């Protein structure tokens, strides 16, 4: 809300300055006034600088930093583990949702929302237990290495009319981050000025469907996304 009134505040501030100049005319600003103004400003800056150091610690609450090598390793590991069916090795924090559905039909169609682009792994169980297990895994969300994985919302799964629907989260998840950058008079000497933008690491959600042995998936449209697991 404050962001919406900011332009109005800027305009108001400008009008205030112009009005002050017009009202004051060519009368010089007194030494006493300037001295008090400068002193007050300097005190405000000192207090702000001291307070800013405390404020920086508790905004996003993100405490974990992951290196770029570890991020890409995690993605590759997750892919390998899903491809080879070694689910037990997948770290618990990668699983963002698990749903089970009783389903006793011979076939099912998978429908994916057009705005959602997950990778889908299909694993046929050894039993025909009449249960479809759907798992959603994430390889994480990292902003400049800071781990925002816990802020990722899980997709939604539902079965209706012999169709398994996979949709993005009900409400669009918005993550807003503010980063304070060093000034050019600092980056010129300590570096960091050339890489102004921070890397955002996020890969597509991976969905694992564990289906009964005899269930077949009818999905001509989205075959490209389906990947059968070879154990």
């Amino acid at each position, binding site marked *: 809300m*404050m*962001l919406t009134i*900011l332009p109005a*505040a*800027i305009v108001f*501030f400008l009008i205030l*300055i112009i009005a002050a100049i017009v009202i004051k005319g060519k009368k*010089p*600003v007194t*030494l006493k006034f*300037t001295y008090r*103004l*400068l002193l007050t*400003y*300097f005190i*405000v*800056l000192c207090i*702000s*600088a*001291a*307070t*800013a*150091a405390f*404020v*920086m610690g508790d*905004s*996003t609450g*993100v405490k974990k930093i992951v290196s770029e090598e570890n991020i890409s390793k995690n993605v590759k590991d997750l892919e390998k583990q899903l491809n080879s069916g070694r689910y037990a090795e997948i770290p618990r924090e990668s699983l963002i949702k698990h749903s089970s559905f009783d389903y006793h039909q011979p076939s099912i169609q998978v429908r994916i929302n057009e705005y*959602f*682009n997950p990778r889908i792994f299909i694993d046929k169980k050894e039993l025909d237990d009449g249960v479809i297990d759907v798992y959603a895994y994430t390889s994480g*969300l990292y*902003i*400049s290495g*800071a781990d925002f994985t816990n802020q990722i919302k899980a*997709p939604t799964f539902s079965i209706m009319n012999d169709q398994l629907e996979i949709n*993005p*989260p009900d409400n*669009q*998840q*918005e*993550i*807003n*981050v*503010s*980063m*304070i*950058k*060093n*000034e*050019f*008079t600092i980056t*010129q*000497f300590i570096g960091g000025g050339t890489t*102004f*933008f*921070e890397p*955002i690491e*996020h890969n*597509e*959600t991976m969905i694992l469907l564990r289906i009964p042995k005899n269930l077949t998936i009818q999905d001509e449209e989205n075959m490209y996304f389906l990947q059968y697991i070879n154990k």
Partner: protein
Amino acid sequence: MSLSTVNTSKVVKQQYILKLKANFDAFSSLVWIQLLAILFSLGGVASQGFQSDGMSVSIKYFSADMVIAFTMIWGLVTAITITTKPYRYYDFSFVTNRVTSSLSNILYLCTASVIGGVTAVMAKGLLIIIGYFFLDFQLLDYYSQPFHVRDFLIGNIATVLYIIFICSIGYFIGALAQISKLFIAVIPVLFVGSMLLDGMMGREPIAMKILSFYFQESSFSLFVVKTLISTVLFFAASISILNRMEVRK
């Protein structure tokens, strides 16, 4: 003929104190200019976005770059202003000559640059506080330490040096304008004209080469040497120009 002997350093010191008091109102404009720059900076100096799988990430970047740039402009204007007639005529109320007048002006500009530079770098704190309490900034720390001691010191010294350097350019332009008002038009025409000419000829503009000589110097000690030598040269040239002028011209 006066029987009392005049000590140059004493005269400069007295004139400096008097000029500091007389031109102290320049600091109220510094405060307003920096506050205005902080307001503009609250919108962010850059932003980055990402959207995927029902999620959107938005990053806004904040820094006091704009405050420093505005302060540099303030320094340039202040330096040009003190070479104008009303300010020079004010000198003749005291025992003075062109050199002592210029030296006290330079000392005043150095003081102004120190105050302007330090407050500009410290304005980052105010920017963070306003953003955090009023604009709901979600600050990502680790990379956003506002006042790392080393960075703070480097930032302050470099900013002050930049402003002093800009002031020396302003003082030089002001001195040239006292010789002939034609320089007021010639200097911007030369600057813009050379950029246009270099652009048409498909080569890097000389102005950009000059700027990169200072702004792309990554060694701090070399930067200090470059700016100090350039500043001294500009001030010396200005003193030399103003020294040749007749009294009350």
